[in-house]
């Protein structure tokens, strides 16, 4: 962590209200993100990681709502901010990159114009100034400035994602939320995109929250990793510690499940069972039905989320809590 605390989430609960059902997508999460750091939110689908990320910029889909908790950003609690105020943060101080670059851009508008639109929304710039800035941003992510005049469908998937990133940083935000930004792209492009993230963190001091289901990817790029399961954080620690000494059984299982490219004789490891239904979560620790180390206590009481070691948080009865 290089510059102090940027974002502090405390006891966040975000639920989806669909018909009669209540899905507890995020059910009590606390974590923080510092300036100039890349934090990864890792988990299976349904773990709540995307919901958590989008709760921060308050872009939840139909039926979703923050029911409790605080999201402190630079001293202001975003969770209870009226929508009108929220708009001053969205796109300007916190921006987002989405999963599918193919559908994230208006197909009828040239790339350049979409930049100009964003820039002119947040800054008092003339058309020429905005154009110039847009072209510089394109160069920054490795795209030729002539592409300014192209339509989205004329660019490859990887290029489009780079455009999305350029758009996201065009307003000089403090924080960028990236939701599975490379899932739809191939590995080579993936590496390039991650390089861009790292570069932006180093050169511009932008923090990233990277939402991903791929823990291997997270370990390559993130400074800290938060492992989420069934709406709660299971473990949150610096990447080296997650790699060297993962404390939560779920994290350990995830690491074991990473296929080894070199040793193809090893069988693929998987975690038996499936994630719980978040409208009816199991009692006690949510992972206990699939946990190899489950004790009797795990089925009865939920473990508290504690700092088991300095800077290393975990919610597991194996590691403390009375």
């Amino acid at each position, binding site marked *: 962590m290089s510059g102090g605390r940027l974002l502090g989430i405390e006891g966040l609960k975000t639920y989806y209200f669909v018909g009669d059902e209540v899905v507890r997508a995020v059910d009590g999460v606390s974590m923080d993100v510092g300036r100039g750091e890349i934090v990864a939110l890792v988990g299976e689908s349904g773990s709540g990681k995307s919901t958590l990320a989008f709760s921060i910029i308050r872009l939840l889909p139909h039926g979703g709502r923050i029911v409790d908790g605080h999201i402190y950003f630079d001293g202001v609690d975003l969770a209870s901010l009226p929508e009108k105020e929220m708009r*001053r943060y969205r*796109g*300007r101080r916190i921006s*987002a990159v989405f999963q599918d670059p193919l559908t994230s851009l208006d197909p009828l508008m040239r790339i350049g114009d979409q930049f100009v*639109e964003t820039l002119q*929304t947040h800054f008092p710039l003339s058309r020429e100034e905005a154009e110039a800035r847009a072209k510089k941003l394109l160069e920054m992510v490795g795209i030729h400035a002539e592409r300014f005049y192209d339509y989205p469908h004329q660019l490859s998937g990887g290029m489009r994602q780079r455009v999305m990133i350029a758009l996201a940083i065009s307003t000089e935000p403090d924080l960028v939320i990236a939701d599975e930004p490379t899932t739809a792209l191939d590995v080579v492009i993936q590496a390039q995109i991650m390089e861009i993230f790292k570069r932006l963190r180093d050169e511009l001091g932008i923090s990233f929250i990277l939402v991903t289901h791929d823990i291997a990817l997270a370990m390559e790029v993130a400074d800290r990793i938060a492992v989420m399961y069934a709406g709660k954080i299971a473990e949150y620690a610096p990447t080296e510690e997650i790699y060297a000494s993962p404390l939560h059984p779920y994290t350990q299982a995830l690491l074991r499940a990473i296929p080894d490219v070199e040793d193809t004789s090893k069988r693929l490891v998987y975690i038996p069972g499936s994630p719980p239904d978040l409208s009816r979560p199991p009692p006690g620790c949510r992972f206990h039905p699939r946990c190899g180390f489950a004790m009797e206590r795990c089925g009865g009481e939920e473990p508290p989320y504690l700092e088991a070691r300095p800077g290393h948080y975990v919610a597991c009865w194996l590691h403390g809590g009375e």
Partner: protein
Amino acid sequence: MASLRAYILARVLLTIPMVLILLTIVFFIMRVLPGNPVLAMVGMKASEEQIKMLERELGLDKPLWQQYLDYLWGLLHGDLGRSMIWGRRPVLQEIWDHFPATVELAVAGFTVSVLLGLVTGAVAAVKRGTLVDAALRVWGILAYALFIPLLGMFFQLVFGVWLHWFPVAGRKNPLIDVPRVTGFYIIDSILAGNPWGVADALWHLALPSLTLGIVLSGIYTRLVRTSMLQVLGEDFVRALRARGIPEDRILFGHVLKNAFIPVLTMMGLQFALLLAGAVLTETTFSWPGLGTFLVERIEYRDYTTVQGTIVFYALLVSTVSLVVDVVYAYIDPRIRY
């Protein structure tokens, strides 16, 4: 822009076989179906000689394949035949006389239907799930089920007969005389600097265009609603919000344009419906357009004119379809690149 030119070329080439087929179908209907037009025209009392003479004149004595070739050859030269009744006027000429009236009605009706459909569809989309949405959906179904003459007559009764707000028939007041330049009374009146002419023309256009517009709008309501809902759910809308773009700018600068594209394709397809609806509207309001002309000539058994008119419709539909596709390609860059 080069690819646009290429697209236009390809599209034109595609139109030719379709037009040919339509022309052939029309020929088939008019010549091969049972019923002897000549007999119907001159009646049972005509002598053998008279019938033979008429047949020769109409080219009916030649073998079928030759008639077909003559027919196509004539069309290539813009010859749609000649009327079988008084004066033997060229059909094309008569069509041109009546065409502007239909165009006027069609344009006005189309405008009404699109505006009405856009508004109702957009409101239904924005208020999705509410009673307003449900009501508008039912309205969409009801509108199309309205029989045009029924709606027209209803308006004639209420707004014409009972309230005296609008005229019930015709295109203009015969007492107002405006020199005919284009055939469009509104334009001609403007050109002649006659404001009464413009007002009169619009006044007569009101009920017919409202009738046609309402009935056609039903389709657009549903289409616009579906299209907008789809676009609103797209990723790029979410991305725009994430960039802090204000909601109204998203709606008017991005959503409407994108939502409009499937609607535009539909509009091209709806042109045929527009023409069909115009025929019924014209006959209901005694509007002197192509539809009334066609029905009238059928009554008079003027088969060559009827054939010529149907051919004209076929050519019209094909041309408009082509133009719409080109416009579509121009607007949506994905098509041509």
